[in-house]
C-alpha cells in the first residue's frame, strides 16, 4: 500500500544523479561567501575582464566578479524555489484536503476555481502582475505561490478522497476523531510521498519562473540572479564575454532544473504505481 519514497529513489540511477546535483548546488549556495573573494555587488572599473587567477570567470560590465554572482545567484534561485515550493504546498494541502473532507458546495466551488486557474496560462499572468507590482523577494515568492498551488490541490484532493474511506481512518472516526484531527494525524502523514513529489514540482517551476522574470527584466533587479546575469550578458553578445558570462549562468540554471527533474522523475511512480516495476531508469 505504501510506496516507499526512499526505496524508489535508492533504486533509481537518475534519481540519485538528481540528488547529487541538487546537493552540489545547495552546497555551493551555502558556502558562497567562503568560495568567492568578492562581494557580488561590488562595482569597480575593472569591467568586462576575461577569466584570470583573480577573477575566475572574469567581470561584468560594471566590474563585478562573475564567479561571485554565480554563487550568490544560486542562493536566489534556491530561496525562491524552495520558498514557493513550501508555500504552494501549504496552500495545496489546505484547499485540497479541506475540499475532500468537507465536500458539498464548498468542494464544488473550490474545485471550479482550481480548474479555472489551471486553465489560465500561468506564465502570462505572472508576467503581467510582476510587471506592474515590481516584486521584491517576499512578494515574488507570494505571487508565484498563489498562482501555482492549484495543480497540487487537485492531486491532493484526489488522494485525500481515497484515503478518507480507508480502514484505519474509518476506525478512528468510529472512535470519535474530528475532521481536523483526522486530517492532521492521518491523512497528511499518509500522503508523505505525494507531498514531496508535488513539492519538487513546485520548486522546479518556481526556479524557472524566477529566472525567466529576471531575464525579462521585471523581477527584482537588486537581487543577484542567474536570469539577470543572462540578460546583462545578452547585451554584450557581440564580444567574447558570453563564453564565461552567459554560458555559466545558463548552465547553472539548467543544471539546477535538471537535478530537480531527475528527482521528480524517480519519484513519479509514487503518484502512478503503474510506472513501477523493475525501474532501473
Amino acid at each position: 500500500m505504501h510506496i516507499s519514497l526512499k526505496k524508489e529513489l535508492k533504486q533509481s540511477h537518475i534519481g540519485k544523479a538528481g540528488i547529487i546535483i541538487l546537493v552540489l548546488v545547495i552546497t555551493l549556495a551555502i558556502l558562497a561567501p567562503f568560495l568567492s573573494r568578492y562581494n557580488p555587488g561590488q562595482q569597480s572599473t575593472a569591467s568586462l575582464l576575461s577569466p584570470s587567477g583573480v577573477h575566475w570567470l572574469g567581470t561584468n560590465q560594471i566590474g563585478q566578479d562573475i564567479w561571485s554572482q554565480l554563487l550568490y545567484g544560486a542562493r536566489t534561485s534556491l530561496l525562491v524555489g524552495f520558498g514557493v515550493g513550501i508555500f504552494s504546498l501549504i496552500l495545496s494541502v489546505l484547499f485540497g484536503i479541506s475540499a475532500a473532507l468537507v465536500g458539498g458546495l464548498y468542494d464544488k466551488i473550490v474545485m471550479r476555481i482550481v480548474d479555472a486557474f489551471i486553465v489560465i496560462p500561468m506564465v502570462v499572468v505572472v508576467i503581467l502582475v510582476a510587471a506592474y507590482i515590481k516584486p521584491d523577494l517576499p512578494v515574488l515568492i507570494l505571487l508565484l505561490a498563489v498562482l501555482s498551488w492549484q495543480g497540487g490541490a487537485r492531486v491532493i484532493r484526489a488522494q485525500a478522497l481515497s484515503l478518507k474511506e480507508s480502514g484505519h481512518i474509518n476506525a478512528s472516526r468510529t472512535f470519535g476523531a474530528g475532521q481536523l484531527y483526522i486530517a492532521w494525524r492521518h491523512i497528511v502523514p499518509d500522503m508523505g510521498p505525494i507531498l514531496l513529489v508535488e513539492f519538487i514540482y513546485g520548486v522546479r517551476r518556481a526556479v524557472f519562473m524566477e529566472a525567466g522574470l529576471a531575464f525579462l527584466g521585471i523581477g527584482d533587479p537588486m537581487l543577484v540572479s542567474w536570469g539577470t546575469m543572462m540578460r546583462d550578458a545578452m547585451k554584450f553578445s557581440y564580444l567574447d564575454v558570453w563564453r564565461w558570462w552567459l554560458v555559466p549562468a545558463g548552465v547553472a540554471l539548467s543544471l539546477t532544473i535538471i537535478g530537480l527533474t531527475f528527482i521528480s522523475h524517480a519519484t513519479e511512480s509514487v503518484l502512478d504505481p503503474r510506472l513501477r516495476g523493475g525501474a532501473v531508469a
Partner: protein
Amino acid sequence: MPRLFLAVLVISLLPALPACNDEETPASSPIKTYTIADSTGDWGYPSPYAHYSRGPGYVRMSFIFETLIWKNATEFVPQLAREWEYNEDDNSYTFRLQENVKWHDGADFTADDVVFTFDYTKDHPFQWVDNSIVESAAALDRYTVILYLNTPYAPFFQDVAGAQPILPRHIWENVTVPEEFLTADAVIGTGPYKLADYSKEHGTYLYEANDGYYLGKPVVREIRFVKISLEMTPAALKEGSVDSASIPAEVVGDLEGAGFTVISAPPSWNGKLTINHQKAPLSSKEFRQALTYAIDREALVQIVLRGHGLAGSPGMIPPTSVWYNPDTPQYVYNPGKAQQLIKGLGYTLENGYFYKDGQPLTLSLIAAADYKDVGQFIAQQLEQAGIEIEFQTLEAKTVDYKVGAWDFDLSIYGHGGLYEPSFLQRYILGEGFNSARYSINDELTQLLNEQLTEMDTDKRKDMVFRIQELYAEDLPALTLYYPISYWAHDGSMPLYYTMDGIAIGVPLTLNRMCFVQ
C-alpha cells in the same frame, strides 16, 4: 599644355566647394540602397501626427516633410524658405519661399501652405512644436510669408521655424482628426524622399527618392530602415547587410580597424540626481552642495559608463557646448568638505554616520531599473560620506509619478535636449516630473525667462553664463554624467551630426540633406 594647366587648377579648387562635411567630397555617383539599422524599429507612421513622440520618430517623418529652414553640421541653411529677415519693431519674420517646389502629388507649394500650417496647428498642436509664440501668419504674395510673434523669441529658429513641418493645405484642410489620418495622403510632403513602405510589426521603413526634389536629385535612390538590436549591429555591419548604425562603445576600435567610420555626437543627454528641495534637510542649499561634493562624478563615468562619457557639470550645460560657462563651480570630489557642510547644519558624526537629535540621517533614493548601476554607485558614495541611503528600484512610471507628486527624497533620471538654452527654462522652471521645479531664486527665475526673449546673442550668452553660476550654487538638481554614443557607417555617405541636433535637438546622424548631395 594650357588646357592641362587649367584642368589641374580646376581640380585643385574642388575641395574648396561646399560639401556635406569638412572632409573630402565623396563620389556623388548614385547609391542604389542605403540600409540603416535601428534597435527599436517601429517609430510610427512617418506623418506629423502619427509618428511616436521620440527623436527617431521625428526623423522618420523629416525625410518626407520639410521645415522653413533647416540645419547642416555648422549652421542654419535655407530649406522651404530661401531667405528670411527679422523685423524688430513688430516682432515678425518674413520668409521668402522657394518658387519651384512641388508636393509629392504634383501640386504647387505656396505661401498658403505655410499660413495654413500655422493656423491648423493652433487647433491641432504638433507634438513637438509649441507654436503659441506665433500670433498669426499671413501671406504677402504667392511666395512670401510673414509670421508675427507674441514676443521676441531667441530660439525661434531652433524650436519653431526649424522644426515645424509644413503641411499641404489641399490635403489637411479636410482632416478633422489628424491623429487618425493614416492614409497614403498623410505622407505627401515636399521632401527628398517619399514613403514606399512602412511595416509596424517588422519595424521597417522604405523610402524612395523624389527625383523632382527642388534642391537636386537625391544621390541615394532608396533608404531602408531595418530593425536590429544594438548588440547585433556590429555583426550586421561586418557582414554588409547594414551600411550604418548606432553601435555599442566597446566595438569602436574593432570596427574602425575593419574600415568603418565611427563618429560621435557632442553630448546632449544628461543623467541627473533629482532632489526634493521642498523637504528638509534637502531644502537647504548647503546640504545639496554637500551631496555634490560627496559624489565623485569622474569615477561614476569610469565605472558605470566604462569611460564612455563626461562627468556632469553642476551648471547642467555640457562642457562641449558653446554656451558652457568655464567658470561654473565644479565641486570637485571632496568628501571631507561634504562632511564639513553637513556638520554645519547641526549634524554630528558617530561611527561613520550622521545623527541629529538622536535620529540618523537617512534618505531614500528611487530609480527605474535602468539606472540600477548608477543608483548603487550613488548610494555607496553617500554612505561613505555618512548618509544612510535606502535605495530602491521601482517601475519607471511609478518613479515618475512619485517624483511628480513630491513623494521622494532623491531620484535618478535623465533627459536630452541639452543644445539650445531654451531647455534650461523647461527643465528648471517647468512643471513636469522631469523638471527641477525650482522657482524660489528670483534672479535665476528672471534670467531664465529673459534669456528666451533676448535676441542679441552676446547678451544672451552673458545671461546663460550667469544662470549656470546661480544654478550651480543652488543645485536644485545635480547633473551626474553625459553619456557618449557612437555611430558607425561604411563611408559611402558623408554622414554628420547636425549642429545642435536635428530640429529641436535630436542627436542622430540622419539629416535628410546628407542623402541629397
